[in-house]
């Protein structure tokens, strides 16, 4: 939509998608998103770092025209996913001399996903560099900072790190830089929670690599550019750290009020014991909010009625997402109600194979929970308190 300058000779030429409301047909985008593409005009070579979602091809091409770009020497593909590489074929059509620079793994994916001719790709190695004349670009492989082929591009003289998805946010803004900071950082946290959380060990390693670079500006491929880098880096260090907090997240659905009553009692008793609680009624819940709430709690409680013989499908859906995100949870419990019988606990337990939780005794009420059931909930709250104390989460 507009060409904006990050530093002399370095421009943002991507597209803002104000009204996109869902990503991967799964993740809500309350603030829209952007597909950032950066143009670097070196004294000898001109480079485009990443492209845009194919639906926005016309915007990127029009921006390049506005920026007076007659020739592009290289496109750097930091990541093969279509929202960043999807317009490479369009660029190749308009600028036929351009060569794509990427790693071996990404090269194969570009061929598979986008049908790019292998002969148009030059593969580079980790920490290799290219000269643009007055500037040097360094490529830093970052496998499993989301995908196996992901990498960063670092402009040494500009001290800009083009981090692709890493440290990005789904946040549409007319401002190039992160100036509405509370909202931008909330967006970055949501983004981390939704797609980066399973790879936090890899991310930790790459945060160390970034420490070794002189970075003045971080330019991700979604959301605004960070002119001040320490805030986002320190937040990310906290997210990926091994520490958990004195918090319980409760995910639940209730059909006739029985499970709801158990959840309400648990919320109350946990608060009384000085434990933070974040309940999620899964009916109509924003799965991104749920992902954020999983970043640092010690404990998860899954509360479900029994539908036929198993968990409520909304609960099963949420548990499969939690399992895929691999949050650093330590303790877990399953509670709920049933009408006659069923395998709800066994079913949910089997769906949490990657979580390695220390599980509390389940609390199941037949029909409407009576006083004995509610006392069992109080007992669960006591046990959670004890585990949090033993883990040093409560002073």
């Amino acid at each position, binding site marked *: 939509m507009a060409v904006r300058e990050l530093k002399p000779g370095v421009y943002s030429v991507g597209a803002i998608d104000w009204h996109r409301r869902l990503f991967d047909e799964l993740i809500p985008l309350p603030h829209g998103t952007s597909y950032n593409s950066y143009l670097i005009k070196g004294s000898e070579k001109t480079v485009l770092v990443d492209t845009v979602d194919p639906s926005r091809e016309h915007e990127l091409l029009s921006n390049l025209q506005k920026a007076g770009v007659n020739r592009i020497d290289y496109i750097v593909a930091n990541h093969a996913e279509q929202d960043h590489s999807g317009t490479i074929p369009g660029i190749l059509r308009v600028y036929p001399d351009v060569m794509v620079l990427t790693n071996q793994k990404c090269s194969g994916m570009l061929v598979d996903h986008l049908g790019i001719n292998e002969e148009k790709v030059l593969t580079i190695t980790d920490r290799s560099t290219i000269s643009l004349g007055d500037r040097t670009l360094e490529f830093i492989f970052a*496998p*499993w900072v989301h995908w196996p082929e992901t990498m960063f591009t670092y402009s040494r003289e500009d001290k800009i790190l083009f981090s692709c998805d890493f440290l990005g946010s789904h946040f549409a803004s007319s401002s190039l830089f992160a100036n509405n900071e509370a909202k931008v950082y909330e967006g970055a946290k949501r983004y981390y929670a939704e797609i980066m959380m399973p*790879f936090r060990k890899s991310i930790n390693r790459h945060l160390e690599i970034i420490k070794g670079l002189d970075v003045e500006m971080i330019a991700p491929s979604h959301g605004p550019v960070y002119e001040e880098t320490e805030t986002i880096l320190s937040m990310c260090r906290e997210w990926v750290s091994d520490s958990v907090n004195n918090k319980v997240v409760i995910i639940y659905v209730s059909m006739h009020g029985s499970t709801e009553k158990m959840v309400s009692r648990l919320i109350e008793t946990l608060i009384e014991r000085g434990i933070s609680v974040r309940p999620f009624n899964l009916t109509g819940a924003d799965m991104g909010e749920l992902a954020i709430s999983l970043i640092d709690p010690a404990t998860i409680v899954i509360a479900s009625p029994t539908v036929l013989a198993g968990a409520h499908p909304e609960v099963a859906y949420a548990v499969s997402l939690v399992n895929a995100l691999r949050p650093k949870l330590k303790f877990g419990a399953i509670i709920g109600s049933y009408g006659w019988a069923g395998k709800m606990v066994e079913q949910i337990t089997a769906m949490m194979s990657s979580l390695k939780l220390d599980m509390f005794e389940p609390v199941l009420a037949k029909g409407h929970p009576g006083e004995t059931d509610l006392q069992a909930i109080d007992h669960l709250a006591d046990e959670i308190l004890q585990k949090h104390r033993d883990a040093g989460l409560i002073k």
Partner: protein
Amino acid sequence: MQRYVCIVCGYIYDPEIGDPDVGIEPGTPFEELPDDWVCPECGAAKDLFEKEA
């Protein structure tokens, strides 16, 4: 010997088999794999492996 599972793709490193494609002999425990060894399926580094339950 303890087998290890790649948390990204589910590949199982079996020390009894090793990873002959990259010169890892059968009988090599996971702990003795070189630091730069990666998952043959998906390229994940060693720290993305967990002990098989």
